[in-house]
């Protein structure tokens, strides 16, 4: 190892830089765990809305009108594999482990279409059976059942408890599990599929271009309610943006606090190292070179603290998930790319601003020669 290698200094002086290391670890832990809560909330919204809408859009009417023939014909001509759906059942509250909960959609469709729908989302029936027509049966996600301590055969709905928004009384026929969450019941109420199709349709969009999707939506009158990616984007953008902004504000606050705290510590460290720096400058290392050495050492310690902070956070989240959340149908995200990047700004900024302004002014005002 070269004598001026920053790692040599860190290796031989770890006690001196330990405070910086642990401060950074703690700071990164706080930022990253907050980011994971935020990412979990985003994921919760995503699995209950965006991910569904990336495959299917839903167009339906809730008054006496019907969907335009032209719209249905286009879908038919495109062999869209659309499903008749009624959106007349209230959604169920869904939590994931992040901040707050959301509502998952409850599809009311025909018994013979349920398998098709589950297959298209790669959903697996993990327990029980699929719901049958007009039997007041409902299929719910396994996570939902765990969150609410429900078993197959249990009843849910307003007649069971005020906690439910779902009107009436439904028996749970089975649990499903997969990458998205929704509930499914089959209550056609004596209507034919053709009748239902005129009032509500789930049509595939994953094989349509953005332009084709937009053209389809634009062809519908205002009375038609459209559930699409854009619809949910509008619905949730304010919340998700605010949450993101909060993460950034929190990160900036943490950087400022650490810069002030570690800035003072760096002054003390610098004072203890003045002799070393004087020797190195006297034997021919420029102030710029020494400044770079000090910064890289500080950066390495901060990055070490960052890595330790990330690993520690992931360990804590893994323990929370394993022993507390997963048994109750919830989960915190373990990795968030955005969280990793946001937290990574900390070692970079802190290593620069906790050190360089102080040391540059000292270098300017002091004769560093022996």
């Amino acid at each position: 190892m070269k004598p001026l290698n920053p790692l040599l200094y860190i290796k031989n002086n770890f006690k001196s830089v330990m405070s910086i290391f642990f401060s950074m670890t703690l700071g990164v832990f706080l930022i990253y765990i907050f980011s994971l809560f935020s990412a979990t909330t985003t994921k919760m919204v995503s699995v209950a809305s965006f991910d569904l809408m990336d495959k299917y859009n839903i167009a339906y009417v809730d008054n006496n009108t019907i969907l335009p023939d032209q719209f249905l014909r286009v879908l038919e001509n495109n062999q869209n594999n659309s499903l008749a759906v009624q959106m007349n059942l209230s959604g169920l509250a869904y939590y994931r482990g992040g901040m707050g909960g959301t509502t998952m959609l409850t599809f009311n469709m025909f018994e013979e279409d349920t398998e098709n729908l589950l297959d298209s989302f790669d959903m697996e029936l993990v327990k029980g059976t699929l719901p049958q027509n007009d039997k007041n049966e409902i299929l719910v996600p396994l996570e939902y059942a765990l969150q609410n301590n429900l078993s197959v055969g249990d009843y849910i709905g307003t007649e069971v408890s005020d906690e439910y928004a779902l009107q009436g009384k439904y028996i749970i026929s089975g649990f499903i599990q997969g990458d998205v969450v929704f509930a499914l019941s089959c209550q056609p109420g004596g209507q034919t599929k053709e009748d239902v199709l005129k009032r509500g349709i789930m049509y595939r969009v994953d094989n349509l271009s953005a332009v084709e999707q937009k053209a389809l939506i634009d062809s519908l009158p205002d009375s038609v309610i459209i559930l699409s990616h854009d619809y949910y984007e509008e619905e949730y953008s304010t919340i998700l943006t605010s949450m993101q902004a909060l993460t950034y504000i929190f990160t900036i606050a943490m950087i400022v606090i650490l810069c002030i705290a570690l800035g003072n510590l760096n002054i003390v460290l610098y004072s203890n190292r003045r002799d070393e720096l004087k020797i190195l400058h006297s034997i021919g290392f420029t102030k710029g070179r020494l400044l770079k050495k000090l910064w890289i050492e500080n950066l390495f310690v901060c990055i070490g603290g960052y890595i330790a902070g990330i690993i520690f956070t992931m360990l804590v989240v893994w323990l929370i998930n394993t022993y507390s959340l997963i048994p109750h149908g919830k989960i915190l995200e373990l990795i968030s790319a955005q969280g990793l990047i946001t937290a990574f700004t900390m070692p970079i900024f802190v290593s620069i601003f906790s050190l360089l302004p102080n040391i540059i002014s000292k270098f300017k005002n002091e004769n560093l020669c022996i």
Partner: protein
Amino acid sequence: MNYQLNDVNLFYDMDKEERTAALQDITLSLDGKGLVGILGPSGSGKSSLLYIMAGLKQPTSGQVIYGNREITNMDSSILATLRRKEFGFVFQQHFLINYMTVLENTLSPLNINNKSTRRKAMQLLERLGIEKYVNKYPHQLSGGQRQRVAIARALMNNPKVIFGDEPTAALDHASAVEVMELLSEYTTEAMVVIVTHDESILEKADTKIYIRDGRVEEVHKSKQRRI
């Protein structure tokens, strides 16, 4: 490499009414080889003169010319590079870096740790009789051993000039003589400038500069340079 000092002055407390003169009207010419001793009582300005020659201190006025380069007006980073490439330093207090081993301290001026630099460092340490302490840290060595490490470090970059500021002050007489012997060996390849108040260690000096109250009192050159 020749050294030329022209009318060099160094004053402290320039902003106060009464300035303190550390060096006054120093004009010297050295031919860049041999052992040069700077002698004088404490506070006479001998260390200041050495530091000015080495570019570690800037004079208040006057010129210091090394070879054909005026170092008094040199940019500090160019000056630092010059010190690293052409000068070697042995300070009174050893000034080793605490967290580096003997070998790492020795390699520090080059900041290169490869087979060839390690071999060179080992040769120097062997020559100085401290090769067995190569992995020790400065606090594990005696004063004399530390001073030898400092000498090895000073010699590592094949300097053209070696500056020693009271390099034997912390040593007993026998060690002091030994250290001076070692430094004297380099006078054929480099100029060795030693500041001391102990004239006995400068018996073999080619040039002796006597300083008193910041002024050169006498310059004594031996008639024949040792070979």
